[in-house]
């Protein structure tokens, strides 16, 4: 089994390489370059553009650019060898002067801890969304199963179906219209993200899909578990209904839910860019969308790679969690 997992881990390397290569090729085909301003602003003049291109090595052949990005190369001005992606260096941002991509994404503002960096903000939002999803979705599923085919079950199922099929930014629009425009409970683009109440709406919206999936999954597994022999045995032993439900049903029904949380978390981190842009959230997702419109090549490369690695790790984590939870499962090819 360790062999299998090691193989899966090693397979990560070519995957990252291919993702990086594909992104790199496609990005350099993109019309416009990092020095273009928007149409109204004054453009950077050609000589300055040439110097900038030389400084960042953008005048070199594509293959050289790619290898120096991945492995490293000599700096054009200082002539010192700089290590590339393999050391975690994602290169300088073309737009935010004097900052490398990893600094921009991972470095918090002064006097703040890591969780106030762009990445930290996104992580916090993702965990908040996951927390909301579990705390609401799991009870929804369990209650639905215990009261199968009653009105409460139908309402839960309907909410879950909506959450699974309707994309979260559309749900965000509905919630904004209800809570911000009509009821005036929250403002849509808050000035400060230090207060908790402004996090609730983006967190809920982001987590809604996972919430719905958790509810449906836990309902389905609960219904399955409820018919198991060991549940009947537990009742026959004379255990109280509460103990039967909590200890025998819910604990076993949790297994598929737990295995689904890894990819769900990755989905929350990577899927947040629209929600972040919508709510003006200072996270990595919004940095990604901004980088796209500004053609900040190195920033796009960096964020795409981080996203790809997160997704790959999350998918891999499912295998680990399976083995931990269910000793009967043996992983072989």
């Amino acid at each position: 089994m360790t062999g299998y997992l090691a193989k899966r881990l090693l397979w990560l390397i070519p995957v990252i390489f291919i993702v990086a290569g594909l992104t790199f090729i496609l990005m350099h085909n993109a019309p416009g370059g990092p020095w273009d301003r928007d149409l109204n602003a004054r453009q950077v003049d050609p000589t300055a553009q040439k110097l900038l291109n030389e400084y960042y090595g953008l005048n070199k052949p594509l293959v050289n650019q790619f290898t120096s990005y991945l492995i490293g190369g000599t700096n054009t001005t200082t002539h010192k060898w700089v290590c590339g992606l393999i050391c975690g260096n994602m290169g300088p941002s073309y737009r935010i002067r004097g900052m490398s991509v990893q600094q921009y994404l991972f470095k918090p503002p002064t006097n703040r801890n890591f969780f106030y960096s762009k990445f930290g903000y996104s992580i916090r939002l993702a965990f908040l969304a996951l927390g909301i999803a579990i705390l609401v979705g799991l009870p929804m599923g369990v209650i639905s199963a215990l009261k199968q085919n009653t009105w409460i079950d139908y309402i839960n199922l309907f909410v879950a179906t909506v959450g699974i099929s309707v994309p979260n930014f559309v749900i965000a629009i509905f919630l904004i219209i209800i809570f911000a425009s009509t009821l005036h409970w929250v403002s849509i683009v808050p000035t400060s993200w230090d207060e908790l109440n402004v996090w609730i709406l983006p967190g809920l919206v982001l987590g809604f899909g996972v919430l719905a999936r958790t509810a449906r999954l836990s309902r389905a597994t609960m219904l399955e578990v409820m018919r198991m022999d060991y549940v009947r045995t537990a009742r026959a032993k004379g255990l109280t209904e509460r103990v039967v439900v909590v200890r025998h049903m819910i604990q076993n029904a949790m297994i598929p839910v737990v295995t689904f949380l890894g990819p769900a978390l990755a989905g929350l981190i990577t899927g947040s860019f629209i929600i972040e842009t919508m709510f003006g959230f200072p996270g990595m997702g919004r940095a990604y969308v901004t980088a796209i419109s500004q053609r900040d090549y190195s920033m796009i490369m960096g964020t795409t790679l981080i996203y790809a690695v997160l997704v790959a790790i999350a998918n891999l984590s499912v295998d680990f969690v399976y083995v931990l939870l269910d000793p009967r499962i043996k992983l072989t090819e």
Partner: protein
Amino acid sequence: MEEQATSTTPAANVASLNEISTPRRDLLADAWYRLTKNKGAVAGMIVIALFILVAIFADKISPHNPLQLNSGFDYLPPFWVKENAAGHAGNPNFIFGTDTLGRDVLSRTLYGARVSMVVGIFPTAIILLVGTFIGLYSGYKGGWIDNLLMRFTDVVYAFPDLLFFIIVMISLRDTVIGKMLNGLFLLFLALAIVNWVGVARIVRGQVLSLREKEFVEAARAIGASNRRIMFKHILPNSLGPIIITAATTVPGMIITEAILGYLGLGLRPSTNPQDFFLTSWGALLLDGQTAINTQPWALLFPAICVSLVVLAFTFLGDGLRDALDPRLQGTQ
């Protein structure tokens, strides 16, 4: 026969029990029967049919020209709003209000149905064709093509879909391909490249289990050719999962189009009245987004339409799954 059926002797009664009295149905007719018994699926089909009609006849049923700028009527809220933040009142002529340029939101939304319907159906047809063929071949023959498929799948699964679409749309938008059909063609291509793998994998899995079955062995024993076994024996038996996959990919495609449109990367809204595809729901959401604080109404109608269509396809997909594979009922 006639005499036997009408006679009342006990022996004839027993004999009539051996005859199948209901008309025989093949597998698909059976599935169709189960599907029509599923309320959610039927409702889904009705909604989809309605939106297809809207898409086809958008030019006939729109109350206004979707491109016409109604000066003096810009930025109207829907008709039920008495007074919005800017002091405008709704106008019953423009049921769902107007956008920043004074174009009728209802008419634009009706035209937007065209894009969503086409995006839902056309790439799905491509991926079904390509995916089924490659899945069949790689499952049946194995070898290098199978290995290649599996490795390609790994890469596709590793690349977050949406990021791939975004990068493709940005980088190829201004090329010749990117300009075809106002950018829709490139979107079809990108959607197809990512999604055919799912179909191919499903078909491959089906083939791997079916090719060991007795009926395939029997076919081989009487000397059927590989092609005959593939298309006459294995393909019809894996149709169920193929149809289910198709039904479940459609809403994903529609959502992707809406997201890309919302990021300004989908269909380019056209101002040429000759164009068939004028605007999409995603693009309408992007338009509405600019005034989300004061005028969220412009977002409401396209958002409802996206939700309705996606929900309809989801219900139909669930219904199809239950109908084609009753063993799976209620597992998801």
